């Protein structure tokens, strides 16, 4: 990075921290710290919801996803607008009426304390691990591309936002997310404009899309059908997107405290619902545009030599082994190909990856997550590189800050005040909230420091992790709302059995992960129904 890039990076990140601390003035009690006194208007709610969901992984990984697999990943979000409608009708009125701090408080009213504790625990485990990945993933990529030490990058990625998150709570989170999103969108728009501008003269935006289309990248709508019928292991098609994506979004936005906490900060029911519905309108086009950026980068590399492997630091490490000659030979062969000779390029890339795997057996050699940033570093003007790197940090911070706030709220409200110290004064509440926010920040950084190979696209990894837990959590809430027959004890046992089943099904690798959300929810309900006649009932429904 040039010194201009460093200046832009430091000013942008420093500015956000200062702004977050400045916006830290909040009422020093639980309502103020975790829910910003429930005074947010809908437009801040929607920016907060979007900022929480769109982490750095979205902006690094999605363009790379489109570059390698085409735009069909957008179908994954088709269920989201439908989920927003259901949440507005069913979840929001219940949460607002009960004036809950966490989504799981409601479960104690409906079932009992152990149902609430189990669900809160499942959330904290899944969100804690996901947040660790949300720190690690962008840190790994940046450290690899820029030669930074991964451990220090994790600390900067996860540690600096603790400054304003601990001091300011939900208010600081919401206001910084607003600014972060604006900067992110402006930066991505500039990147999009420049990638077209850098094409040869005579090649415009539509030409670039046509070129992408000829190479199968404009596969936005896919059916999942093959010669052998519907492919249940096909990850992204319109059916898994609408149905599986609906259940995933319903669980994520309806039962995950990192999102519930965002719209509970709204002034009233109306502002919560407007924020959610606006998210339902904006999210899919936003993802479409981010993915399209990946297609434009692909088309750009039809006129310019793409590296055989986008993670250059990894190839340099591999060349220090006995496989150096093989790698150099493949690189020479690759360099002799025309930029648009995609078939031969693809074959050589695969061979290169195979040799890399042999040279570095403990490392993941998939370079999908390095494509977009490699393009940014190699081709964008000085100063803009710094801005795009800053955007990675800002996107990560927006989502991590919300996660830390939500994890701390669950630990305080669902665990500490229920099992350890029930009666706390307002100042004790405030102090313990800040303490747990700090602890979760350290925990998530530690997860990042100990994380290793994560497999394929990072955006997939985070969603796979979510899909392992979200189905069961959603099933618990669906029973709470609509299946009054099932009582607390049956629900508790059913949830545990269902979670075990989901992990078994995932490990068997027989179905795409998006369907796990549907299966998990249905399993909890069905097993709950089957168990209810045999399980002792304790509590009446409230």
């Amino acid at each position, binding site marked *: 990075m040039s010194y201009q890039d460093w200046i832009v990076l430091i000013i942008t990140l420093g500015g956000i921290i200062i702004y977050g601390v400045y916006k830290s003035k909040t009422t020093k009690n639980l309502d103020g710290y975790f829910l910003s006194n429930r005074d947010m208007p809908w437009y801040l709610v929607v920016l907060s919801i979007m900022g929480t969901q769109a982490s750095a992984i979205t902006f690094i990984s999605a363009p790379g996803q489109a570059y390698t697999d085409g735009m069909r990943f957008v179908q994954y979000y088709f269920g989201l*607008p*439908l989920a927003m*409608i259901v949440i507005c009708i069913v979840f929001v009125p219940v949460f607002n009426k009960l004036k809950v701090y966490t989504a799981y408080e409601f479960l104690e009213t409906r079932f009992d304390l152990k149902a609430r504790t189990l669900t809160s625990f499942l959330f904290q485990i899944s969100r804690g691990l996901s947040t660790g990945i949300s720190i690690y993933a962008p840190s790994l990529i940046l450290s690899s591309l820029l030669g930074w030490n991964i451990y220090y990058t994790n600390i900067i990625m996860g540690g600096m936002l603790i400054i304003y998150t601990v001091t300011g709570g939900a208010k600081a989170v919401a206001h910084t997310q607003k600014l972060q999103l604006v900067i992110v969108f402006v930066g991505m728009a500039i990147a999009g404009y420049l990638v077209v501008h850098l094409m040869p003269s005579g090649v415009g935006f539509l030409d670039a*899309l046509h070129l992408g289309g000829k190479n199968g990248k404009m596969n936005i709508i896919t059916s999942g059908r093959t010669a052998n019928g519907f492919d249940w292991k096909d990850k992204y098609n319109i059916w898994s997107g609408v149905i599986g994506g609906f259940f995933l979004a319903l669980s994520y936005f309806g039962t995950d405290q990192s999102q519930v906490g965002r719209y509970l900060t709204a002034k009233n029911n109306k502002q919560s619902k*407007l924020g959610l519905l606006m998210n339902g*309108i904006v999210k899919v086009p936003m993802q479409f545009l981010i993915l399209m950026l990946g297609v434009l980068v692909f088309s750009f590399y039809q006129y310019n030599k793409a590296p055989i492997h986008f993670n250059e630091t990894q190839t340099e490490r591999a060349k220090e082994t006995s496989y150096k000659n093989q790698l150099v030979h493949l690189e020479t062969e690759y360099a002799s190909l025309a930029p648009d000779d995609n078939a031969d390029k693809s074959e050589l890339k695969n061979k290169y990856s195979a040799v890399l795997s042999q040279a570095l057996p403990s490392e993941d050699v998939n370079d999908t997550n390095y494509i977009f940033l490699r393009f940014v570093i190699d081709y964008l003007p000085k100063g803009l590189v710094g801005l795009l790197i800053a955007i990675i940090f800002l996107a990560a911070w927006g989502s991590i800050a919300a996660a830390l706030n939500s994890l701390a709220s669950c630990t305080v409200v669902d665990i500490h005040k229920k099992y350890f110290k029930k009666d706390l004064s307002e100042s004790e509440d405030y102090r313990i909230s800040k303490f747990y926010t700090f602890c979760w920040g350290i925990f998530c950084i530690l997860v990042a420091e100990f994380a290793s190979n994560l497999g394929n696209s990072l955006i997939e990894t985070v969603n796979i992790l979510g899909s392992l837990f979200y189905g069961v959590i959603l099933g618990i809430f669906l029973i709470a709302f609509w299946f009054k027959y099932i009582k607390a004890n049956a629900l508790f046992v059913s949830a545990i059995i269902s979670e075990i089943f989901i992990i078994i099904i995932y490990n068997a690798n027989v179905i795409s992960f998006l369907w796990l959300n549907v299966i998990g929810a249905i399993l909890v309900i069905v097993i709950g129904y089957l168990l209810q006649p045999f399980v002792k009932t304790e509590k009446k429904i409230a």
Partner: protein
Amino acid sequence: MSDNRNIAEYKSKEKKTNWKLLYLIVFLFLVLQIIFYYFITKHFQ
């Protein structure tokens, strides 16, 4: 007194948000998008 109550009722009805209409808009926007993306897929592939 009854005039004041009528005015209050009228104002609360006037401000009431038509949620069903908003849900329909969100739903239809999704459907239109899917149709749009389908035609883009066919056009560029």
